[in-house]
């Protein structure tokens, strides 16, 4: 079945409040989503802006909300696309900052991917979850597992309020390496609080 576009999904005059069978709610009291939002989880387009290290990064609000023990949370997604190179033993990329109006942020999901080349090994590209053990490559163009550290760091700045969360990609190994990284992580914040992203 072909995916309907957003217009097809709405299907009624948005200026008129309609009542649903068996419900006294009118549309202005409901949260409505487009087809795209339901399928992807994201509200609106995720725009990744360019940063000072050549990284592309941004956040978007997700449709899901959570009630954890009586406390309500909104959910957001952080994305970053970058290359860790040229080859070195240490790569640190400042992604950007996530500033919230109040409260802690909690990362609930991490789907980040590492891509490397293996042209002179088994061939093609390798794709692994971002973690130690992920395949990385070097000038030999043979992929090998990274045995050092590889993670996304959420850090506070010593002079800034705790609501300022600086995000970094940190990767290090005993031998030189390089790879491409696709960060894709969901986080939750107190419902209704402001969330602002500043690219590094």
């Amino acid at each position: 079945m072909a995916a309907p576009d957003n217009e097809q999904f709405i299907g009624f005059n948005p200026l008129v409040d309609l009542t649903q069978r068996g419900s006294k709610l009118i549309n202005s009291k409901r949260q409505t989503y487009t087809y795209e939002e339901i399928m992807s989880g994201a509200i609106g387009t995720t725009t990744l802006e360019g940063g000072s290290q050549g990284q592309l990064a941004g956040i978007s609000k997700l449709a899901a909300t959570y009630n954890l023990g009586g406390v309500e949370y909104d959910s957001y997604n952080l994305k970053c696309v970058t290359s860790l190179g040229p080859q070195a033993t240490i790569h640190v990329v400042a992604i950007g900052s996530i500033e919230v109006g109040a409260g802690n942020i909690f990362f609930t999901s991490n789907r980040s991917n590492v891509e490397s080349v293996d042209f002179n090994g088994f061939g093609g590209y390798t794709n692994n979850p971002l973690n130690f053990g992920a395949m990385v490559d070097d000038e030999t163009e043979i992929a090998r597992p990274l045995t050092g550290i590889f993670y996304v760091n959420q850090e506070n700045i010593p002079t800034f309020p705790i609501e300022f969360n600086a995000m970094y990609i940190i990767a290090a190994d005993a031998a030189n390496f390089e790879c491409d990284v696709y960060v894709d992580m969901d986080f939750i914040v107190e419902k209704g609080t402001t969330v602002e992203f500043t690219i590094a």
Partner: protein
Amino acid sequence: MEETLIKVTDVKGTVLKPIDATFKVEYKYEGEAAAEEVLVGDVKKGEVKGDDFPAPDATKDLEYSEVVIDVTDKPKKLPYAGKRIRFIGKVPPKGFPTDLPFIGKIPETKEEKKLAMAEKKEALIKELQKRFPPKEL
């Protein structure tokens, strides 16, 4: 079962998880010259956990209880000041937020934020180089 006795937060209610701080709880009884220390320790991950605050001496009248948060590592990790919080005639309520005052600087411009992130990045690289020294290409 252990519960959160003290939640070390800023005034917005955000838990100050990385903070290096100690705490003490004192009870002052009517007619006594000085308060008595009943609980002391380190704040761990922004919280003080325990079964409950100690029960006050039933043979005396509790004038007040006081919780003292002493931030030991400011501003290396987080820019918040310590605080004394007094509860008249009762023991502290379990899980109360401390609302520590902010003593740092709120960044106003994007450039300020970018500069701070870049400085932190350089500090991270310096630390990593101790364990993962650069290799000749």
